[in-house]
């Protein structure tokens, strides 16, 4: 089946963002296709490149990067939320004259049309919030 995920949880606010990443990996392992993972509202902060966690806590960016780089999953940050939370790619950083991009290159910034498209074409849409 084709899965789309909607992630509203920030990696800093509990475990739900990492549960979403683990869900995506498990869906792939069960032979499903995970086409698109859409990050909205506080969820866009999963794309942050500057986060530094203490040694004894596992990295919360790597699971997403692996899904994109090893399994070709699209990681899309909603542009309206990305701007609001300061999650800028090269283009947006340039447009708003900020010193550098603030997101990891495995993430792309795009419009809500991508969520609507994913939501209405996927067999399963699973939302992760809180």
């Amino acid at each position, binding site marked *: 089946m084709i899965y789309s995920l909607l992630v509203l949880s920030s990696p800093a606010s509990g475990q739900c963002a990492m549960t979403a990443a683990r869900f995506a990996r498990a869906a792939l392992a069960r032979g499903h296709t995970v086409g698109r993972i859409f990050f909205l509202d506080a969820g866009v902060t999963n794309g942050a490149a500057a986060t530094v966690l203490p040694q004894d806590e596992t990295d919360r960016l790597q699971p997403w990067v692996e899904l994109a780089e090893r399994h070709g999953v699209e990681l899309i940050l909603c542009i309206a939320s990305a701007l609001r939370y300061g999650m800028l790619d090269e283009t947006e950083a340039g447009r708003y004259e900020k010193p550098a991009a603030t997101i990891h290159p495995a993430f792309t910034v795009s419009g809500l049309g991508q969520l609507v498209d994913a939501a209405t074409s996927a067999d399963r849409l699973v939302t992760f919030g*809180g």
Partner: protein
Amino acid sequence: MTLHTLNASPASAAFADCLAMLAAGDVLLLLGDGVYAALAGTGARAQLDACGARLCLLREDAAAAGILARVAGAEVIDIDGFVALSEQFPRQLAWY
């Protein structure tokens, strides 16, 4: 026939709103702080048992909370089980 996922404590508005919507034939998967609602002998657990939905909770979150030994009667599933549930239930609704 909906898969509800609850990621908020039994004291939250999300728990009360979710409870109002649960129907027999639905399944409720407790995630994150939602797992505390499965604590045996608590008011929250009694309300969940009364509504007739199938009750599951995610192992990693229950282990972190330290409640695995106190949730008798609820199904403890792992992330793979969560995917299996989503295969069975075409509709999922997130409460948080």
